């Protein structure tokens, strides 16, 4: 199943754990908030992606299914 990251920008408080865990798909803007790559999560990063979702202190990060193009 292909998934990509989505973030609830209202809930997000810029803790930045997601960018630490999956820097290939998440980088932080100058204020500490996540910029998500629109790409599908590749299989070798799936474990890290799930960990980032679980560890987000505000539960703002989620993985959503995406229609394969």
């Amino acid at each position, binding site marked *: 199943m292909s998934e990509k990251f989505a973030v609830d920008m209202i809930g997000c408080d*810029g803790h*930045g754990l997601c960018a630490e865990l999956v820097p290939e798909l998440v980088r932080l803007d100058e204020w500490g908030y996540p910029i998500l790559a629109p790409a599908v999560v590749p299989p070798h990063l799936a474990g890290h992606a799930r*960990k980032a979702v679980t*560890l987000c202190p*505000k*539960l703002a990060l989620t993985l959503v299914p995406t229609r394969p193009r």
Partner: protein
Amino acid sequence: MITAAPLLSESSYWYLSRASGFVSLALFTASVVLGLLTAGRVSSAVWPRFVTQGLHRSVSLTTVAFLLVHVVSIVLDQFVDIGLLATVVPFVSGYRPLWVGLGAIVFDIILLLIITSVLRVRMKHHTWRWVHWLAYLGWPIALAHTVGIGTDRLWVVVVVTVSLLAVLAAGAVRLAGWRRVVAGRPL
């Protein structure tokens, strides 16, 4: 406290409970400190935030493990009258009901914290957060329970004092971080 000489195994439960109690307090303190550091956004080049958060979760689970040993062993101990009910309902034990009662309150709070955190993804974040604030109530009560149930040794006083200082320091860091986050918002 009476120790009956021939049955060594029975006083073993008592010592087991005391030992696991101190370990539980130390772990609970570590968990509270890690939680405060997570919220205070402490990190460095070699210590990322996900380590603090991850440790907070693992240490909390370990705390529960030792806490269960502490509670079960004191129930099994024959020489003090603390039944299973007294571990969750405060102030009903035969032995030192006040201090054991405080322990029961802490146990209840920690169970609530762990259960809500395990089920965190299934509830509104808002709800989880309000319940988690009970940790600020639970930890001082745990400290009071430890001190009240018997500080007859100096090293216990030392452990308790160090724990208190650690939590206060981490609390200061947390508040400093909170002000930084709030300052980022205009008006």
